[in-house]
């Protein structure tokens, strides 16, 4: 019987590794889940980036569901997900831009060049406020419902599938 033990132990190990390889195919396995899910979003006390297209102020976010997108002009993947964000905004969703570790000039220039899908852009130049959100890089995207509760977080660029399957259902809930 004891002769079988090493083999049994190895089988357990191999199973674990098999699951591991399957789990990690193609997705970024270093993403940390958000502890904010189900909790009230941190109060937004950041300065707004004044742009001609800005339609609302921070106070207007109260009572409405919105998507918070963390981006920076230095962030390569943000450019990649930009069309997805733009389409999301054009379909009527309120998308708030969280400009992370960026200068206002660079941010404004980036938006002028690639288009501004954001109803509002808040500015976090030194990244201190980002710690409250558990942000550690860009792009990251949060979905906050009308009650102000964080319902979803995605790390990495958004894809149409994620928007379709994860984000829209939350936004379409009755207020």
């Amino acid at each position, binding site marked *: 019987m004891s002769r079988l033990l090493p083999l049994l132990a190895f089988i357990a190990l191999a199973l674990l590794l098999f699951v591991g390889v399957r789990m990690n195919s193609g997705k*970024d396995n270093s993403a*940390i889940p958000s502890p904010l899910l189900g909790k009230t979003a941190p109060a937004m006390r950041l300065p707004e980036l004044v742009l001609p297209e800005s339609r609302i102020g921070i106070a207007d976010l109260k009572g409405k569901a919105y998507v918070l997108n963390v981006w920076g002009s230095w962030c*390569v993947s943000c450019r990649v997900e930009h069309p997805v964000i733009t389409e999301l905004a054009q379909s009527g969703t309120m998308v708030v831009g969280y400009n992370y570790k960026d200068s206002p000039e660079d941010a404004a220039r980036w938006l002028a060049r690639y288009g501004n899908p954001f109803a509002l852009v808040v500015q976090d130049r*030194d*990244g201190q406020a980002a*710690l409250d959100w558990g942000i*550690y*890089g860009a792009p990251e995207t949060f979905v906050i419902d009308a009650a102000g509760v964080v319902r979803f977080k995605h790390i990495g*660029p958004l894809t149409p599938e994620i928007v379709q399957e994860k984000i829209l259902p939350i936004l379409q809930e009755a207020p």
Partner: protein
Amino acid sequence: MKNIFAALLLLTGFLCSGTAAALDPIDYQSPAEEQRFKALAAELRCVMCQNQSIADSNAPIAHDLRMEVLRLMREGRSDDEIKQYLVERYTDFVLYEPPMRGGNWLLWMGPFVLLLIGGIAVAAVIRTKNKQSDAAGNGATGEDW
């Protein structure tokens, strides 16, 4: 998509491979503060460069977290409070030492359980051999080398 992930991974790898020392000249208020800060920073994981503590990592977020830790320390919070503050924002993952919680029991106790089982097996073998030895009347001590 796969290419983007690959590129991201490479970029992270480059950032996190220690290409620049995680340097932060800090004016410590006292040697005790310096020691406490360094000890605390070594116990917190960099959430970007995930196999380094925030003391070792040169990722921007590591710098931010170090400054935050220093700020919280100077506010008068205890080590546990500071850790809790960060866990609330980044989950248990930010603790470099896995907390003794839930499933982590397996992690911390596992090696000792294995040692115990191995020890029992070894003891059994020694006992058998000892009995055989006594039966064979091996009174004399054995060879040297």
